[in-house]
């Protein structure tokens, strides 16, 4: 091998590596550095380096509450997305090919609508005089109308709406790699539809299910617009607190610390998920799970 041959891989990946470093690593380092400064309303960002922002956050009960809420919403959203998305992908997979295209388009529909429009739609539906409450009142539901807007439930509904397609698409990709004859083999051995789904299909599409779950969790935990619009001002999550510090209070160092803590928390959750859940669930699938050829 010549010297140039050895350098080729590095040279070929250099442009994307530069973009990656310039657009992601440098700003991240900037945020981290910013979070280590103090802040004063008269003097702005102070020159000294310290961990005061982090100490303030960890001792602030409001922050603890927001962090817990962030993860509660993300976890609930992920769970509901899986319960809806996995069977949905399976149903569409089994559909007549003629219907599959239109159905997939309907599934990804929410992703094609602007976040503001989508959430405004939910505000109309979930308001005290909204369609949902009108329907429930008409049906004489005890306790109706309910307070739906500005609740965690509203945030979860709004997030599930836009996140389900991610699970469907992720599981859909896994289903495409599933040998369709497996189903007939299971039938010939006496398995019913439900058993085939739980015992044969689900274990084999686990890589897609877990990848979809991880995507939904990370995006839900860092979502900003939906919690802000459907949760309102009083229902704070970490991302809306961050936004507030940067743009309203103008305490950039505290905002940077908030962003750093959120990122670290999501990273930690991801690592735990991969180590505890994904590894165990995928061990049976062997090479397939590691993504390499058998």
């Amino acid at each position, binding site marked *: 091998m010549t010297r140039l041959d050895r350098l080729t891989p590095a040279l070929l990946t250099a442009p994307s590596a530069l973009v990656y470093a310039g657009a992601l690593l440098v700003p991240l380092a900037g945020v981290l550095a910013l979070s280590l400064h103090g802040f004063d309303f008269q003097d702005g960002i102070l020159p000294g380096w310290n961990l005061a922002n982090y100490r303030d956050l960890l001792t602030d009960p409001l922050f603890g509450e927001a962090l817990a809420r962030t993860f509660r919403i993300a976890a609930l959203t992920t769970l509901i997305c899986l319960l809806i998305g996995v069977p949905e992908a399976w149903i569409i997979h089994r559909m007549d090919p003629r219907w599959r295209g239109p159905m997939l388009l309907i599934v990804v529909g929410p992703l094609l609508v602007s976040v503001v429009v989508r959430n405004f739609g939910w505000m109309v539906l979930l308001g005290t005089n909204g369609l949902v409450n009108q329907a429930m009142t008409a049906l004489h539901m005890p306790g109706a109308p309910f307070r739906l807007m500005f609740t965690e439930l509203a945030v979860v509904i709004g997030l599930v709406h836009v996140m389900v397609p991610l699970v469907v698409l992720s599981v859909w990709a896994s289903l495409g790699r599933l*040998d369709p*004859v*497996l189903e*007939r*083999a*299971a*039938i*010939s*051995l*006496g*398995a*019913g539809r439900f*058993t085939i789904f739980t*015992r*044969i299909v689900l*274990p*084999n599409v686990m890589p897609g299910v877990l990848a979809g779950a991880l995507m939904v969790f990370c995006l839900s935990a860092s979502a900003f617009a939906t919690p802000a619009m459907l949760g309102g001002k009083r229902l704070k999550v970490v991302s809306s607190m961050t936004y507030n510090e940067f743009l309203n209070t103008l305490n950039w160092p505290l905002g940077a610390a908030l962003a750093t803590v959120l990122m670290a928390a999501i990273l930690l959750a991801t690592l735990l998920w991969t180590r505890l859940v994904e590894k165990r669930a995928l061990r*049976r*699938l*062997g*090479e*397939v799970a590691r993504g390499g050829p*058998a």
Partner: protein
Amino acid sequence: MSAPAFLTLDGVGKDYGTVTAVRAVSLTVAPGEFLGLLGPSGCGKTTTLQMIAGFETPSRGHVLMEGRDLAGIPPAKRGIGLVFQSYALFPHMTAAENVAFGLEMRGVPKAERAKRVAEALAQVRLGHLADRFPRNMSGGQQQRVALARALVFEPRLLLLDEPLSNLDAKLREEMQVELRALQRRIGVTTVLVTHDQAEAMALCDRVAIMQGGRVVQIDAPWQAYDIPADAFVADFLGRSNRLPARAASGEAEAAGHRFSLPPELADRHGEILLTIRPERLRIRCERTAESAPGLDGRVQARLFLGGFWLYTVETALGAFAVVAQNTGATPLDEGAAVTLDWDAHSLRRLEPA
């Protein structure tokens, strides 16, 4: 067949829209029999198998098992063991778990399940690989797991869909011997679908040769080979030479060459299509006396196949394939002048396909 039929197909056919995949197949399979559905791709053999298994609903006709119509009985309730071309082993289950699945679905208690799985795996000589995943097994081993999985719940009927076509030649031969012995031992009625005539002939008690959605001939393999129903069967099963001739008073004439016809064709007159198998032709290198019967020719090509030589001999009647046993003698050279002759009773008349 004199034995009572175990499986009966009565005019079974399948249409997909305006396309007819299977016209009308009627056949019976005796208990314990090994029947082959043999034909080129698109002949309807796989569709026929799917209708027996219950994955396809016949457009007409009936499938009967022990006299009972299977119409409306879902595949899971038919008690049929299936082996697929791709094996279709569950990738996330070990060999033992794959085999156990059918028993579990039938509610066999765990202790008995383990015992029967061990027996089934031992039967296909895989007892030592029970805890392996399919991805860590060779094609032949996966094939045997698939077989154990299909047999463990003691199905009344075993259906094999091109079970050996993914194996290499040597392994395929070994598996043929093993499959045949296993089927004999267990005595399960078996239907095999294949496009490989050698495989069908090696394994089956009888073969149903299919073409264009129809069964052309059902016979024991050697009978179908010896007396093919038509030109299609003659060409599809093994090699054959065609010999168009004119018949008159017990003799045939082609391109100035006269030869006698077998007694059963003695009363034929006019155009006749004859056929003769390559191994029924005798090849001699020396020219014989004018009086001796024989067809002169020249060796155009030769192929060494181990146990025998396959010669292509160019004659006045066209090219002939000739199989000569490898006796250890020096083979004939390409270009050598030779004489072919044969016994009149080796000739068969063909219906044009």
